[in-house]
């Protein structure tokens, strides 16, 4: 049937089609959009959410959600920036990334050892970590003028270094998910947890690692954020949880778990950034941008809901 073909294509590459269409339309409408500095800017802007979405893709495929990713980004970014002048850029970065990994581990421990549902657990840690960020910074912005910020914020032939890092992270995530037993176990747990246990999968350990990954990539995303702004505040990335989850879901990963696509997440991250960029370009007020984001999400998911309705009955 014709409509079935449409949905099949949409499933596999829909997000890229939409992205391509949007880019082309915008390029035609607005000459400023076409300019290489602007495109380069877009690629750089999408890095924080794009990188954070890598970890979130793992979590959603495994069947749950992690609501603390925004707070992790803020906390690790603040810690990193505050330590740059003390231990140097790269050490501060390593500390931040380790911290992110540990914060994720804590999430995982609460879920696996205490038997708390991930939704509630990460809701709680979302506020605890955010509060820690406020307490650590005493609500003052952390700043630094380190030269490394400049280096990492640059581009190579209009491709930002941060974007290159993001692509590398995606490749790493792709490899982990599709080419290792661990990745397969993530799918299994999301698909049927009991069956995974019966197949000898160490569900607790896999879950633990998945949450740790979210923390790890969250910290990387926080670092990207810091590099872009040369600073970090406790209220950074406020509300990013929504955007990161939206990116993953929009990219084609189902909230039910058991299936997912990295390529889709990648495309969705760029798509969101293009939309924001376009809105800025057309001077849409920031308040309206919020509304637009929510609207796009609803639209995309109503389409998804309608599609599922079709395939069921």
């Amino acid at each position, binding site marked *: 049937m014709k409509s079935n073909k449409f949905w099949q294509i949409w499933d596999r590459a829909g997000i890229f089609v939409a992205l391509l269409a949007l880019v082309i339309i915008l390029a035609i409408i607005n000459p400023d959009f076409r300019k290489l500095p602007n495109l380069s800017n877009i690629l750089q802007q999408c890095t924080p959410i794009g990188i954070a979405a890598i970890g979130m893709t793992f979590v959603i495929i495994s069947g749950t959600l992690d609501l603390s990713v925004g707070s992790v980004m803020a906390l690790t970014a603040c810690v990193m920036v505050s330590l740059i002048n003390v231990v140097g850029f790269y050490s501060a970065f390593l500390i931040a990334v380790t911290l992110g990994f540990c914060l994720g581990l804590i999430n995982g421990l609460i879920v696996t050892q205490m038997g708390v549902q991930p939704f509630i657990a990460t809701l709680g840690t979302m506020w605890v970590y955010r509060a820690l960020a406020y307490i650590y910074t005493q609500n003052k912005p952390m700043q630094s003028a380190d030269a490394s910020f400049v280096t990492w914020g640059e581009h190579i032939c209009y491709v930002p270094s941060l974007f290159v890092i993001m692509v590398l992270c995606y490749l790493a995530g792709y490899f982990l998910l599709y*080419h290792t037993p661990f990745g*397969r176990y993530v799918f299994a747990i999301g*698909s*049927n947890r*009991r069956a995974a246990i*019966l197949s000898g999968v160490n569900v607790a350990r896999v879950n633990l690692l998945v949450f740790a990954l979210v923390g790890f990539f969250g910290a990387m995303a926080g670092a990207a954020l810091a590099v872009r702004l040369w600073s970090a505040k406790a209220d950074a990335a406020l509300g990013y949880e929504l955007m990161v989850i939206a990116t993953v879901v929009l990219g084609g990963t189902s909230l039910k778990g058991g299936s997912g696509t990295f390529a889709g997440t990648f495309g969705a991250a760029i798509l969101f950034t293009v939309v924001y960029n376009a809105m800025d370009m057309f001077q849409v007020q920031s308040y309206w941008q919020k509304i637009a984001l929510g609207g796009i999400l609803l639209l995309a998911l109503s389409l998804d809901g309608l599609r599922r309705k079709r395939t069921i009955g």
Partner: protein
Amino acid sequence: MLLMFRLIAVILPGTMDPEILKLEHISKFFPGVKALDAVSFDVTRGEVHALVGENGAGKSTLIKILGGVFSQDSGTVLFDSADIRFKNTHHSQQSGISVIYQEFNLLPHLSVAENVFIGREPKKLLFLNWRKIVQDTKRILEQLDVSLDPKILVEELSVAEKQMVEIAKALSFKAKLIIMDEPTAALSENEVQKLFAIIRTLKAQGTAVLFVSHRLKEVFAIADRITVLRDGRFVVTRSVNETDEKEIIRLMVGRDIDTLFSKDSTYSKSTVLSVRKVNIQNILKDVSFELRKGEILGVAGLMGSGKTQLAEALYGLLALDGGDIFIEGKRVNITSPKEAILLGIGFVSEDRKSDSIFPELSVLHNMTMTILKRLTRWRGIVLNFFQERKSLQDYTARLDIRYQNPHQKIAFLSGGNQQKVLLARALAADCRLLVLCEPTRGVDVGAKAEIHALINELAKKGVAMILISSELPEIIGMSDSCIVMHHGRMAGYLNKTEMTETNIIGCATGQMTIGLER
């Protein structure tokens, strides 16, 4: 009864047909498959009418049409002399048809009384009339000779008790036809007899029962007539006393299956598994037995006897409180399925859908889940896709699994082939001991014979097996020896000659003990 109806039909034509349900040329299509093809048969008032057929014969499609889940593409449904097409499940219920599905349609957090009257609660002004709800429920339960407290929450009930609640619900709708889909699948012998008593009560009250089941022995025990469906078509309706199991099977399958179960008695002397005085508090007590290479040990028992828990303990799902387990002479402590797999123990769970299948994943991924660690390069980090595909090919050949391509979603396979994939998964990890829990439950007769043949093959190749089943013919036919569980203890340790139905049921109900000295 029939005579009386015929009389009334003559006197008052059209008002009281003897048939409560008459299906005429019912057809239903789904994309790519014709689920029902001009099916016609009838059910008389107050009759117990059995509907049998292999999986895919069209039984569940028919049930769903009668239950109002969807309607037929062509053909008429005459219910209670009226041509009717059900708009939704509620419409069907209100018209007098109640369907009791295998998975039940109950609300676990609500009480029995609330479940029975959900949506039609008696009110006092705006509030619930609790007293009336409880009273009315009590009255219906008494009709069924069932003693249940209407205020208990449904989640606290046993499977058999939940079934009673469904029947009570049907009665509260004054159902004229109750359709039961595999009602005895999860019941013990005792509970089955109780159910049959209730069905007879319903019959006496004039309620017809459409009894859909795979278990022919029970069908012959309770039904008046049997209708056979095959490949979506109606085959025949026979009176129970005019036919026998063999003929029904032939009609269901379209060919003769003469030896359903047969086991070649060959096994070696080397002991694979030795279980000594295994204890789990409140669940198992002093269970001991031995299993040799190529031997099949059947495990029988009523529900709650501990037979499933015994299997789970061997697979590392339950911890032992006492006793020892020896694998090939070495004492082992199995703490997780992962460890069990490393020890060469494979496990096939009784509930495919909720326990074993990864619905979103492909056939390939489903099969290889237990052995991923060995299908790798570089010290277990990177998956070796080539090796993975090869292992699937191996098992596809060995077990004759049918699918279109390895990356096909497993949900598209038939029940029998899904079971084979799970079997392959359990065997793949160098399995020397295979624990099978109800391996042919929900599998049609044709595939059942195939699986039994496979089990035979495996035994010949030296795999020791533990076969847990509630189908006595299966246990008697397939096992070399068998233990019978009763309230967590071994009531019988029977060898081939002692394995008779009488003995097994006798031990299972606690009336006798056989062979415990071994």
